[in-house]
């Protein structure tokens, strides 16, 4: 994934590669048995300081243009329609400018 995004960034030739992170979590009132199972495993491992675990999903979307307000609005629509089920889940968007990061990976490797 890192490799392909690096190549993509380098081939964008002066272009702008942006990434938007979409985090999806079950709504607080929805029972999360997976999180509970992870919590019980943390206790078995001796991590007694952990008092709660909720499990969610993270999507990394790569864009062919800037993560401007129009792109974010489209991604918000996508998240509502596809990535999350608003009946049981909530989501948040986090724009992540990849240009500098990808370029440095490209130089390094």
């Amino acid at each position, binding site marked *: 994934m890192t490799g392909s995004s690096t190549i993509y960034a380098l081939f964008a030739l002066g272009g702008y590669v942006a990434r938007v992170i979409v985090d999806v979590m*079950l709504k607080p009132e*929805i*029972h999360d*048995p*997976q999180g509970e199972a992870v919590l019980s495993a943390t206790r078995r491992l001796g991590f007694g300081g952990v008092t709660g675990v909720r499990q969610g999903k993270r999507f990394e979307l790569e864009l062919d243009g800037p993560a401007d307000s129009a792109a974010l609005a489209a991604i918000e629509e996508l998240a509502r329609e*596809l*990535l999350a*089920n608003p*009946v*049981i889940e909530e989501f948040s968007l986090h724009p992540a400018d990849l240009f500098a990061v990808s370029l440095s990976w490209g130089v390094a490797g």
Partner: protein
Amino acid sequence: MRIGVVTFPGSLDDTDAARAVRYAGAEAVPLWHADRDLRGVDAVILPGGFSYGDYLRCGAIARFSPVMAELVPAAKAGLPVLGICNGFQILCEAHLLPGALTRNAGLRFITRDVRLTVANASTAWTSGYESGQQLLVPLKSGEGAYAADEVTLDELERTGRVVACYAGAAPNGAARGIAGICDEAGTVVGLMPHPEHAIDPLTGPSADGLGFFTSVVTAFAGARG
């Protein structure tokens, strides 16, 4: 009567659903997920299984398949649709039914015969039963716990849109013990357990599930006079 049975990549129970249709005296018409064509059927069954590998969420990808682009408007216009297990999940993802199916409380995939109580015997798929009748049918699902907000649950109960409940405690943690619901018209029904596996004592725990299929066939014959 011609009843379509949709096969998605990962559907498991389309064969049994088609068999149940034939047991009920109707013609089973295979429908393919990639075809934007309902082939003129009089009703549709979305069978159980793991459509598209349950990727993203159960039913979330199937919702956008070409056949669903035809099915959603047809269902809204009154075409009887029965979604069983994964089919129920698809109906919820497609917003033909409210709420969602979430991971079983306790995380275990549950495969066992369960007793259901028919709560609404006037839907397109349950008119052959009596309200309060108990049915013995298999349940086999990992994400079968029905969930919806309290307002929706109240509304479903108040308007008689709970079609079936688990008799006793819900084995999967379903809200208010809900095993199946219907849309406002009573033509679109979603059910988590599997009536198509209980149509003959030779191959299932009972023949109690056959009534879902004979109900829609009888109603169709009655409408035709």
